């Protein structure tokens, strides 16, 4: 039923696009086929067809955009997402954007420090294109302009959590529990209400010397905290009977976070230096402390990145160091006190910018694992590209990347933009 409805909506969109073009609405987008084969067993890890449609109309005072995306997985599963749909109102010194929108903040690439307004879609881990990895949020955004600076105020009435891989996905990681576990999902949802809304504020500016921003947010943790209730039994086979961990009741629950941070970017002798940092207050971490209620403890943490963009000849390079540092650390915590990561990007365009070679890599420094992503893209025609790439997971199997050692993949994406 859902599939039929989705197909109907798409047919309506396509049929209507001719009419709305006649009304001055610009229609653009892309069609893409994406197939990936797992190196481990030769199975298709991904078979995905995508249609992305952008409907836009811009005037001097108002504008609108609607961006439905249709994903077809394998040959029968259709998924329609309204990635964005919003209206703009332009005034002399400020703009107002209302509706479902993606908001991108910060100076970091591929990591999310102050970029926390739009939650992530991690259903394909971190492999989706960066414009598809974020989900839109229904919100009101006010941009007030002062010279080259902008004050951005965002109000989000309804909380949207991070989208996690489905339990049948190759990206789903089965948690390892010391006893049989039962999930209680009764507290997983955040009821939409004024009290439960989120608010963000940012000031940013670009100048001849440096670009910088400062931000604050009163938000929800996009990832639920796992409240663990331990049920003990008594082993009567021993004398005296000994208590043992019989089962676990796990209650996922989102908690409030207060976040403050900033970012900068500047050029010094042809090198671009970037930095971004945020202080998170209110985060709950898992602990092994038997006295801790629900096996969690609240700790503040600092998350920051420093990055450098540079060129060697015609090769563009970029590297970043990222650290998540838990303050007032307690050795019983499951997480390390400092979690260190690095990224590395190398890009070379050749044949008059029709052939692009790229290597991007996440490197987990604590566990010594990595995700290495080489790819080669050929622009066969304007707007038509063929991409061959690979996702290689290496290193410690307990690491964030190494845990997917079975999911190393070669893939092909063919995309037609219109």
């Amino acid at each position, binding site marked *: 039923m859902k599939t039929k409805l989705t197909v109907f909506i798409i047919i309506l969109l396509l049929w209507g696009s001719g009419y709305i073009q006649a009304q001055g609405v610009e229609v*653009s987008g*892309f069609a893409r086929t994406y197939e990936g084969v797992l190196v481990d067993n030769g199975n298709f890890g991904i078979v995905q067809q995508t249609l992305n449609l952008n409907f836009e109309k*811009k005037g001097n005072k108002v504008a609108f955009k609607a961006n439905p995306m249709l994903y077809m997985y394998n040959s029968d599963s259709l998924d329609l997402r309204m990635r964005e749909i919003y209206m703009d109102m*332009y005034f002399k010194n400020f*703009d107002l954007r209302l509706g479902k929108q*993606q*908001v*991108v*903040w*910060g*100076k970091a690439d591929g990591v999310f420090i102050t970029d926390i307004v739009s939650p992530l879609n991690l259903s394909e881990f971190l492999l989706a*294109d*960066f*414009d598809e990895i974020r989900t839109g949020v229904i919100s009101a955004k006010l*941009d007030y*302009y002062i010279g*080259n600076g*902008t004050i951005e105020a965002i109000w989000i009435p309804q909380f949207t959590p991070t989208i996690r891989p489905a339990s049948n996905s190759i990206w789903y990681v089965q948690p390892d529990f010391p006893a049989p576990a039962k999930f209680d999902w009764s507290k997983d949802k955040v009821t939409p209400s004024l009290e439960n809304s989120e608010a963000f504020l940012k000031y*940013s500016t*670009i100048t*001849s010397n440096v*670009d910088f921003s400062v931000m604050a947010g009163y938000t929800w943790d996009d990832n639920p905290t796992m409240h663990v209730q331990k049920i003990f039994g008594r082993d009567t086979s021993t004398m005296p009977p000994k208590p043992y961990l019989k089962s676990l009741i796990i209650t996922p629950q989102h908690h409030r976070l207060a976040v403050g941070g900033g970012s900068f*970017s*500047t*050029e010094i*002798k*042809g*090198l*671009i230096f970037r930095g971004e940092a945020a202080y998170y207050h209110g985060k709950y971490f898992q602990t092994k402390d038997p006295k801790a209620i629900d096996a969690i403890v609240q700790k503040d943490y600092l998350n920051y990145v420093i990055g450098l*963009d*540079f*060129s060697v000849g*015609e090769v563009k390079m970029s590297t970043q160091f990222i650290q998540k540092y838990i303050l007032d650390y307690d050795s019983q915590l499951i997480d390390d006190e400092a979690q260190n990561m690095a990224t590395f990007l190398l890009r070379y*365009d050749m044949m*008059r*910018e*029709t052939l692009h070679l790229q290597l991007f890599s996440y490197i987990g420094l604590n566990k010594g694992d990595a995700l290495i992503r080489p790819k080669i893209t050929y*622009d066969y025609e*304007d*707007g038509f*590209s063929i991409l061959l790439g690979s996702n290689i997971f290496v290193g410690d199997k307990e690491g964030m990347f190494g845990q997917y050692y079975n999911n190393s993949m070669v893939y092909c994406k063919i*995309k037609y*933009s*219109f």
Partner: protein
Amino acid sequence: MKTVTIRLIVMAVFLTAAIGVKAQLTGREIIKKVYDRPTGNDQTSILTMTLTNSSGQTRIRKIKQFTKDFGKVEKKIMFFMSPADVRNTSFMNWSYDNDNADDQWIYLPALKKVKRISSDSKSDYFMGSDFTYDDLGDRKLDADVHKLLREETLNGNPCYVVESVSKDKDYMYSKTITWIRKDSFVGVKKEFYDEDGELLKILEIKKVANISGIWVIEHSLMKNVQRNHSTDISLSDVKINSGVNASMFTERMMMRGL
């Protein structure tokens, strides 16, 4: 009488020579006049680039651009209109009168953010064309040593022919030679020589128009003679001094687009 006549002739010759020497511009002075040629307080146009490869296949890029002179800084913003995969990308450049390096930003709609980029890569080719960023932008006058080679007529127009050699030994061109019209100080032809001194590219100006009293190059062709490909650039809808608002050159407009 004869003595007086001879003296007058000698004086006339010296005077003529003196005037001639004074009137003879140096290479630097000629290039300075090219750089100082009025361009208006602001300019708007649509730039169409046609890239032709050695097989004769073409690719077209279309950009709407705005430029405004703020005195000590000239600001430029470009909005990419086609092809489809780069539509809504924008690029902004602030160029300073002093020795400060340019500031540059790019907005990629897929990333939804404005990124500061290095202006150090001026030898990079612009959108796969035969023009480097340096070819398209204003080069600093004293980045090169300029020498007047000769004067000659090109396409019926008397021209100065000036050789410019970069002071930076690592610069991508060993020298350039420019033909500059004497009447308007508009460069009408330029040859670019590679690091080995071999001819690399030839730029020919096909059409110069006087719009609102300002000379504007409306059509030019750059040929890479070593690789046998070319880029044709034409400007349309050119407007000079139309009162482009200063707010056009901001992060707000980069993200909003056209």
